[in-house]
Structure formats: C-alpha cells, structure tokens
C-alpha cells in the first residue's frame, strides 16, 4: 500500500502534520497548480498502514485519513511489487 495525498482535494490545512505519530507529513513550501501549499511526504514507507495493512487485514492507525477534512488522504495499491528499504525510527 502506498500513502497518497489527492492534490485536487487538499486545501493545505496541515492537520495531518499535527496528528501523524511518525511525522511523515511535513509542511510544504511550494504552491501547486491550484495555488495551494500541500504537505509533502517524508519517507511514507514508514507509515504503519502502508507496511502492515495487508498483513493484519484492517486499518491500523489511519488518524490522518480520519482527520483530513477534505478526504484527500488515502492508500492505494501498488501494482508491481517494489521491494524497498524500510527505516523505522525508535
């Protein structure tokens, strides 16, 4: 699973920056095509839901998905499997 921000819906309120326990969302600096500063993702593969949702078969943390007032945060399936290094910070 891959964490994505829907740029067409995000209004740049940065509530996800406030709630993410891993600090994956960082305040952005550049305007997008709609004139909105959307948050940027810092190593989204650290997200617990990205890594373990398929294993547990349920939503694990999902606070950003629930608190996003614009329904802009979602997880999408990655079509071809891409092995990548996972860094977990303690």
């Amino acid at each position, binding site marked *: 699973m891959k964490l994505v921000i829907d740029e*067409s*819906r995000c*209004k*740049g*309120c*940065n*509530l996800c*920056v*406030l709630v993410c326990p891993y600090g994956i969302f960082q305040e952005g600096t550049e305007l997008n095509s709609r004139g909105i500063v959307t948050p940027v993702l810092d190593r989204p593969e650290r997200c617990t839901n990205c890594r373990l949702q398929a294993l547990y078969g349920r*939503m694990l943390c*999902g*606070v950003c*998905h*629930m*608190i*996003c*007032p*614009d*329904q*802009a945060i*979602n997880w999408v399936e990655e079509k071809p499997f891409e092995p990548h290094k996972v860094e977990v910070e303690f």
Partner: protein
Amino acid sequence: MIAPDWFRDDRLPHIYCTGCGNGTVINCTLAAVEEMGWKRDETVFVSGIGCSSRAPGYILTDSLHTTHGRALAFATGVKMARPDLHVVVFTGDGDLAAIGGNHFIHACRRNVDMTVICMNNHIYGMTGGQGSPTTPAGAISTTTPYGMSEPAFDLAELAVAAGANYVARWTSYHVKELTKAVAAGLQTPGLAFIEARTQCPTNYGRHNKLRRVSDMIEHLRSHAILVQKHDRLVAEGKPIPEGAFTVGELVRRNRPAMGVQR
C-alpha cells in the same frame, strides 16, 4: 476506513474553508455508519441550514436539506412514516440551539429513534461570524465586538435534561473516540445526541487569536477534560480549569423510545 463510494465524488472538494472541522465529523460519521453495515438506500441524512448542514450534499444517500432549524421536525416525520429507515441528522449549533431549540428539546422528550450529530463551532460560520447561543462568554464575534456577555448553552447537558437516550460529546480532534461515540449512538434505540465541537478558524478563530488551524485544534484539545476526571475533581473539591468542557459519554439509558420498529 471509509469506503470512497459513500461520497459524491463530483461534488468534492467541498465548500468548507481550509481547516474546517465539519469534514472530519463527516468522516467519523461515515466510518461509524459503515461499521454498522447499513445499506445506502436504508439510510437517510437530514440537515437544516448552515455550514454543517451542507454535509448530506456530499454523501451519496437519500437526504433532506430542510428549512432553518426544522431538521429534527422533518426527521421525525421521516421516521414516523418509514420506521424501517435509519435516520441521521446533521446540524449545527445555530440550527439546533438557536432557531431549532424547541424542536430539539421536544425530539429529546419524545425520544424519537434517530441519531443527531451537532457540529458545534461556537459561531454562525456561514453568515459571517455572528455570536450564537454557544459562543463562550468573552469570545469576540461580529455581533459581540466587546466580548460575549451572555453565558453559553451546554447542548449535551440540555439533551441529558430533556431525556435523550444516549448523549456524548467529543471534539473534531478526538477522531477515534468520536467514531466510537457515533457508532454507539447509531446502535442505541431512541434519540442519540452527539455534540462534536469543531474548529472554525475562519470566523471564530480569526477574531479570537486562534487564526491558525493548529492553534484552534490545540485549544480544543487542551480545554477538553474527560467526564470521569471532571467528576473526580468535583468530588475532591478541586477547582475545574477555566474554560474547560467535559468530553465523553454523558448518559446512556433506556427510556421508552418512539418510532422503534418491533
């Protein structure tokens, strides 16, 4: 997790301002409805007038967008005519407490089988930030430029006194707890009232030094105290922090309900 097919994708993004908490409350409600396993054609969302009442317009079910303050009257009619439908009412503080106050207390008294979710943003957001019955004392709004001089309505306590079967209060910061409270309210026969305190950075925060969304969320988070802690402080005779409001499940009881299908 909310299935994306509950939303009317062609209507999104919605008209709410940046950082408005109403979208969060929609998320929590839909997650709870999904948890209940209700079908889309068995669920009706009813709303009145205001920012919060635009919510059913973004949800792909049958919905009623009714006159100002009369959402509960229309919802009672829906429930009486078709007791097999699940009725959920979205309403705001101006809608429910100001113009619809009488409908609210009588719906609680009759204990009609529906769930009322009040998005309380402490202000009339849509019309430009006039003071509402739930504006806290001292808060500045367009109609109270020297600070609100009247005490505010405590909607959850009002619902408890009027006789609702389930009453809870959470904020839009407490998403998991709010989802659980809405799910408990949907399961309860009789009127379930959930007050969700939301942030309004545009019209409330701008006048009250809480312009940033994070400031407003932090204000809600730091002023919320659990009912159990509040009761303990009262029992020990300790002072309750100023401006604090209780969150949690305030009442759950089994008064005879109206409109429950047998």
